[in-house]
């Protein structure tokens, strides 16, 4: 049960997203309409502090639990896949107000609509899997 720590971290992250309203449909709507600073503060703040952590990973000042160097996996390159994939993601996110992690958190708030969103997401991931070799990079 060495992975039980991920369960605890998930509970923590779920509470953080819930309490900072980063799962609220309205918060994402106002973000995309540039009507509030709240989500920019959350995401921007998270990115700035994470960037410091990344530097500490790189310099080896923070090692993982087993004492190994932390090397974040490089992201898959490709202009079309990132822009086009990102746009699809943004369309779904903008309409439903739910990105990946919040879909799971929202299950605790609005079970049935979140289940519909989750089934849709799995279907979407499945469609991607079927087409992955044919899609432009």
């Amino acid at each position, binding site marked *: 049960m060495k992975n039980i720590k*991920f369960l605890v*971290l998930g509970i*923590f992250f779920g*509470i*953080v*997203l*819930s309490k*900072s*309203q*980063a799962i609220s449909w309205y918060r*994402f709507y106002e*973000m*995309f*309409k540039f*009507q*509030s600073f709240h989500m920019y*503060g*959350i*995401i921007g*703040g*998270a990115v*700035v*502090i994470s*960037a410091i*952590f990344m530097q500490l990973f790189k310099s080896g000042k923070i090692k*993982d*639990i087993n004492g190994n160097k*932390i090397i974040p996996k*490089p*992201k898959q*390159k490709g*202009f079309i896949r*990132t822009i086009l*994939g*990102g*746009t*699809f*993601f*943004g*369309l*779904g*996110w*903008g309409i439903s107000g739910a*990105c*990946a*992690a919040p*879909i799971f*958190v929202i*299950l*605790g708030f*609005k079970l049935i*609509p979140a289940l519909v*969103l989750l*089934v*849709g*997401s799995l279907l979407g*991931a*499945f*469609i991607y*899997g079927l087409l992955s070799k044919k899609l432009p990079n």
Partner: protein
Amino acid sequence: MDFILQPWPWFIGGPLIAISLLLYFYFGQNFGASKNFETLCTMAGAGKISDYFKKDWKQRDFALLFVIGLIIGGVISAMYLIPNQGVNLNPTTIQELTDLGFTNVGNQYFPDEIFGKKSFMSIKGFLILLVSGVFVGFGTRYAGGCTSGHAITGLSNLELPSLLAVIGFFIGGIIATWFIIPVLFG
């Protein structure tokens, strides 16, 4: 205790998200959420239809535990930690949504017009949720990450693909909120 029950401002939420990322990496794994959609497909037997899903999902048991944690975190928050789901919105936002026919704007996290029983039980409302979900699931896997994996992990690690993906997120999100929502609800 009062602080716990109040909404947390951005300068609390942002750092706590960064600490979640730190712990995820400290525990020896890459921070992200959307790959779980694929893992769940694999568990549901998608490998029988497409080789893409022929993977050993047990190698991602840590991520599944994280997802179960997210759900539990949501349940705990909904039941005990948020006595008032009011969202403090810009008056412009409230007016705009009210004009589109939204009711009780900002009085709870999720608008009834999308998450209420009447909405998701209707064909239109059901399809809005389902198709949004398909776009989220397809888009995030095509782009190679979601808000956690690209916007937070990738941007903070100065990854160019993540910057492109986040630009895509905003193109899609702006089209959705400026043009599609007014058509769907106006």
